[in-house]
């Protein structure tokens, strides 16, 4: 059991009052998580006491900064159980991580007529980078269907795999349905020898991650959804694979030698980290990882699953609420609509009740088109949420329905 009161005390923003002095009920962690005081304080302390550029100077501050930055890399490696810290690349976001793979992989391996498989429920950040590659290399992007529970239609997925398939890139935990990818899908790719990227934006903060047990070749996630600051993302790739990939961006910090004729590049991981990295943000990510690890990822996961099931149970009792993929195995995320009320209205109404939820297409327009929906409302849970908050959310939903159908 988590000591929720203690955890809530760690997050200064939870004391905030909304509008008419309503308690903040933050149910939008899937968009971005709030930050514990230790992360905020440590960032402040880094800038106040240790800050300089990394991997360049030889003076004391540069050494301290470099040490803190590289220490964060070790923490990430341990957090996702990667083999080596050489497999951990810091980026500015998960979006940049996917763009990194798309560009480097395509440059090396993609030719006209090749195929890349995604699913219709991907976030735009796992679609658009591949569209850009398609336009440049004249390859094809195939979309696997989903079933009514919000899981990948495995038969359809299997039917898309052929000798033309060069890469599979799919969400690990859907930001709309809250469903976790079936291990069979990953196994299928492994068996066919097709590299697979799992987009871990929604999974890294909510379930324990072991990239080796998952069997994924690439894994990406963002810091800000894991209680860390904005501006830092992670790209993980199996060492033997990313050894072979060309650099994504060129700049300082990633070269071995430069002359007017050309350049040779450094080894992993610096090869993929051109320019001054988000070093303080990466350090903040390390602090956030320590924070969640101390609570325990399994305990957090269990707590959030309990909240999800509690909310699902309460929401299913409301006949005016449509839950999307209601029968899927959800974790931390529930998307829904109130019959005949646009999600914007729901979100604005709940806002003045103090309840922060997301409304819109969730950067998943292909999925919205697939579901014939314009937009949905979404609640998502973090380590700090409670069943009491869900009760308030449910009663706000009732008030909202009454208000708009009076």
């Amino acid at each position: 059991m988590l000591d929720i009161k203690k955890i809530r005390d760690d997050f200064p923003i939870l004391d905030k009052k909304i509008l008419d002095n309503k308690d903040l009920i933050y149910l939008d962690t899937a968009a971005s998580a709030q930050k514990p005081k230790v992360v905020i304080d440590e960032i402040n302390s880094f800038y106040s006491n240790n800050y300089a550029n990394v991997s360049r100077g030889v003076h004391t501050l540069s050494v301290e900064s470099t040490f803190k930055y590289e220490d964060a890399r070790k923490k990430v490696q341990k957090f996702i159980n990667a083999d080596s810290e050489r497999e951990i690349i810091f980026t500015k976001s998960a979006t940049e991580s996917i763009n990194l793979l798309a560009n480097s992989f395509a440059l090396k391996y993609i030719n006209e007529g090749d195929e890349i498989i995604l699913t219709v429920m991907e976030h735009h950040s796992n679609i658009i980078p591949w569209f850009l590659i398609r336009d440049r290399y004249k390859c094809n992007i195939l979309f696997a269907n989903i079933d009514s529970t919000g899981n990948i239609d495995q038969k359809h997925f299997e039917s898309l795999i052929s000798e033309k398939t060069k890469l599979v890139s799919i969400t690990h935990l859907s930001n709309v349905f809250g469903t976790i990818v079936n291990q069979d899908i990953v196994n299928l790719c492994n068996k066919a020898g097709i590299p697979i990227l799992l987009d871990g934006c929604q999974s890294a903060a909510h379930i324990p991650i072991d990239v080796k047990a998952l069997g994924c070749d690439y894994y990406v996630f963002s810091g800000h959804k894991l209680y860390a600051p904005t501006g830092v993302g992670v790209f993980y790739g199996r060492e033997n694979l990313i050894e072979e990939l060309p650099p994504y961006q060129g700049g300082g910090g990633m070269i071995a030698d430069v002359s007017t004729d050309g350049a040779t590049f450094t080894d992993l991981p610096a090869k993929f980290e051109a320019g001054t990295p988000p070093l303080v943000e990466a350090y903040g990510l390390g602090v956030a990882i320590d924070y969640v690890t101390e609570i325990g990822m399994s305990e957090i996961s269990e707590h959030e699953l309990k909240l999800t099931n509690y909310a699902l149970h309460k929401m299913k009792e409301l006949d005016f609420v449509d839950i999307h993929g209601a029968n899927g195995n959800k974790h931390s995320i529930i998307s829904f609509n109130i019959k005949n009320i646009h999600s914007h209205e729901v979100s604005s109404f709940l806002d003045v009740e103090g309840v922060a939820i997301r409304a819109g297409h969730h950067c998943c327009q292909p999925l919205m088109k697939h579901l014939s929906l314009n937009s949905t409302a979404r609640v998502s849970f973090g380590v700090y949420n409670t069943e009491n908050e869900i009760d308030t959310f449910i009663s706000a939903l009732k008030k909202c329905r009454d208000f708009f159908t009076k």
Partner: protein
Amino acid sequence: MNDLIKELYQEIILDHGQSPRNFGECDPHNRSADGHNPLCGDNLKLTFFINNEDVIEDIKFTGEGCAISLASASLMTEKLKGKKIHDAEEIFSDFTNLVSGTNEDLKVLNEEDSLYALKGVGGFPMRVKCATMAWHAFKSALKS
């Protein structure tokens, strides 16, 4: 009930949101434009007919969206129908000031106008785009 919500969702907004007026496509029309809110996916198509005397003879829209965007489009068509282009442009400018919460003096709109009901959007900055989507479509159709 919170006053901001009451202010945002006045009776007339809910009414026009649920039963938008002038919903459809003008036949014939000589101006058209699409409105789109990339943040949420709401969209509309606006068509209108301007006659030889620069008067908007007919104006209609279709599309899908939240109560605010539909009501705003619906009230806009009611307001602009029969107006000269020059007058319509003045209303456009007043309306965008009204809903963006700026305290600019309004030139042609006043509290008697049905459009005034959308003033409450100013209290919800993230919803301003919902209220102005149809209006920006109108402006871009004028330019086309």
